[in-house]
């Protein structure tokens, strides 16, 4: 049961990371010189999203 819950929860995080990567790659393709600054923002955004998925993982294991 917990595994199914984790799977449901991770859908959102997967969408979020996918959107962030999509945005980063398209803007990098349009403006390659912005790559350095964009990478920082991308990692930052991914960290926020990824934390949610990881909290789900840990809660599944502990609960």
């Amino acid at each position, binding site marked *: 049961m917990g595994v199914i819950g984790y799977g449901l929860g991770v859908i959102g995080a997967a969408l979020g990371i996918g959107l962030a990567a999509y945005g980063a790659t398209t803007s990098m393709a349009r403006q390659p010189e912005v790559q350095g600054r964009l990478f920082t923002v991308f*990692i930052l955004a991914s*960290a*926020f999203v*990824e*934390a949610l998925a*990881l*909290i789900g*993982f*840990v809660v599944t*294991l502990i609960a």
Partner: protein
Amino acid sequence: MNPLDKLPEEMEELVDSFSSTPVAGDLNVGITQYSFWMFVAIIILVAIIFTFKKKQAASGLVPKGRFVNGVEYLVEYCRDDLCKALLGDTWREHFPFIATMFFFILANNIVGVIPGCKPGTGCIGTTAALALVSFVYFIYVGMKNKGVLGYIKSLAPAGVAFPMNALVWVIELFSTFLRLVTLAVRLFCNLFAGHVVLGTFAILASLFFEPIMQGITMAAVGQAGASVFWVAILLVIYAVELLVAAIQAYVFTLLSAVYIQLAEAEEH
């Protein structure tokens, strides 16, 4: 004779092995396995820094050799990408704090990835303490720059009409305290989850390898083949974990720098 039957109880044992157990003393006053590996990481870090200083002094102004250049690269990365890029003119003031955080977390994470070692940051106590240090630091910076009342007022953005102003202020106050929680939980969860996944694949590999030790049959050979597959996945995840160790140190310090920058910023 399905090796997967044993997995649930092995998993329980694995998760149990992550809870803090004292190596010396007891849980109130003593050293748990996490703090033990934290001390190891600190000793390694201090040793690296002192050898770096010594070698750098010996080689003169131009750095020579892989070791000196490597450490210098890390420090410059921290200086340019974390401090100068985010903090602007005041980077010099905050560089010691940011660099300390970065190298401490990096050393802990890297030590934790070595098989048999535990990460000092894989325990909620350590990460909560680190987050608290960062929290107090950026609040202090904000209060020093704007004054105590000025900082408290500056949580709500200027230019919002009165009733909304108060509401936004409450939300911002809440999100400021939430930073403390998210900083701690993010680092802890990343390390914990990563190590659980590593452990799971190691257990799978050993469970599938067991039958062939007892006698060579067709099924046992097949399961040993699966075991090789698990080991291959384990190696890939190990590489990912090394990456995560570096990225999480980066993310923690990056977020601290962003919060400091927000605290320092003029009315936004």
